[in-house]
């Protein structure tokens, strides 16, 4: 009986013919787009994590503390809460980094009669605090310290970062929903085609005593095969695109997102994509109704 069902499924696939091919291609496109979005999403998530790591709030100090007092100061700053890491920057270090930042115009620094820059502590907020509100509160808490003259940075940058992430999540949800819809529509359409090509046959099969299982299971199988095939091609295409583009893109990625390499889907994620394809195909196979034709 099993060989019979598989035989019927193969017959259905053949019957779908050129249109079946279109269906597989459309599924491929849908899944490739979904996969591409996923890939970008993964890499953007990595970038967001890195950005959050790099988020800094700088507290300028009234006076440069004596070397032996630095540890005590750092402990005090740490105690305000919501802080992941604290780094002390002396007046000398500050001037050095200004010199580096000025580049071609660094000669300016050499002509200064004395170092005008204050000492500071660079504070990295912890994950929970790396939000616009969290940072704003952190700035307030730092400003309240007696040793601190002025607190800079953080808030707006985090604000913009958070906005990007929100936008990204929104786009992701929209794109994902649209593509999932397209994929389901496609499989259903393709299966409806097969079903329609088969409608008279199904009627006759019922009349000669075939059970619904014998009639329906091959449809589900062919839908699954279409979905799986589409997913496989999509995955292959993604891998190829990644292999081809990643080396060219990495300089740009480093420049703009600060990522050193573009990650690909992990093995479980790839399996999920394949399983999703097969499941989608099977769903299309089950959902399709030949009855929609007058």
């Amino acid at each position: 009986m099993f060989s019979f069902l598989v035989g019927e499924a193969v017959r259905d696939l053949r019957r779908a013919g050129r249109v079946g091919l279109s269906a597989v291609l459309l599924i491929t496109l849908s899944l490739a787009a979904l996969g591409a979005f996923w890939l970008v999403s993964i890499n953007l998530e990595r970038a967001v994590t890195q950005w959050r790591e790099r988020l800094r709030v700088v507290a300028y100090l009234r006076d440069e503390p004596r070397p032996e007092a630095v540890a005590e100061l750092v402990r005090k700053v740490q105690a305000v809460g919501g802080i992941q890491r604290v780094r002390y920057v002396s007046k000398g270090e500050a001037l050095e980094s200004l010199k580096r930042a000025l580049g071609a115009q660094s000669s300016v620094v050499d002509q200064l009669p004395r170092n005008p820059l204050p000492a500071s502590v660079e504070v990295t907020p912890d994950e929970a605090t790396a939000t616009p509100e969290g940072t704003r509160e952190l700035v307030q808490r730092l400003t309240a310290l007696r040793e601190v003259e002025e607190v800079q940075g953080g808030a707006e940058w985090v604000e913009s970062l958070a906005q990007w992430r929100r936008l990204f999540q929104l786009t992701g949800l929209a794109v994902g929903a649209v593509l999932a819809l397209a994929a389901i529509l496609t499989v259903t359409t393709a299966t409806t085609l097969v079903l329609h090509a088969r409608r008279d046959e199904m009627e006759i099969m019922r009349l000669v005593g075939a059970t619904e299982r014998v009639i329906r299971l091959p449809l589900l199988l062919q839908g699954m095969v279409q979905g799986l095939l589409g997913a496989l091609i999509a995955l292959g295409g993604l891998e190829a695109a990644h292999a081809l583009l990643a080396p060219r893109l990495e300089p740009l990625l480093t420049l703009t997102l600060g990522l050193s390499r573009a990650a690909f889907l992990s093995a479980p994620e790839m399996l999920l994509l394949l399983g999703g394809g097969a499941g989608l195909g099977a769903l299309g196979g089950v959902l399709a109704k030949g009855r929609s034709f007058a």
Partner: protein
Amino acid sequence: MIWLHHVAKLYDTGPVALPALTDVSFSVDKGEFVVLSGPSGAGKTTLLRLLYRDERPSEGEIEVAGFDLVTLRRSRIPLLRRSIGIVFQDAKLLAGRTVFENVAFVLRVLGTPRGEITPRAFQALKAVGLSARAQAYPAQLSQGEAQRASLARAIVKAPALLLADEPTGNLDEDMAAEILELIKEIWTRGTTVLLATHRGALAAQLKRRTLTLRAGRLVKDEG
């Protein structure tokens, strides 16, 4: 084998609901050979469709081969149909399969052991004189050949009940006589037969119990 009690069938066709059958009651015992006669549009095909549960009666009760067709659940319809062989008036062959595959399909659906399928299918095709056309597709058959293929499919599973709707409508006299001989032979081997025809002469010639329909009413039951 067949038992009908005050059966009526109204087709719901918009404003005018046509009565295709009105107050039909009769019964057919196991092993009988009954002819269903009546002019075109009398309701013969409708009556047969009620018997294999392709349609449900608007009123009345029907029992076939031990199944109560009014209460029969959808999932159990295939069981009913497996015990009935049907020769459709319009053949109803699977267009994408050869004549041989059409006949073999019934056996595969029934779960017949692989080794038995081919010989039994060929035997049925030989009985209706179609073994030479076994590899032809339905579109490549003459109407008479299609009707014989339909008969071969109906008898291949040796059903308990054979419903034949105008099985000789597209056949010439010689071929028709042969086919009737064949159906009689199947009947003598124990199958109950209900044969519908609009040819009064044919009904008379068979000399069997004849139910006569006229405009959906059973007007005669004799012989």
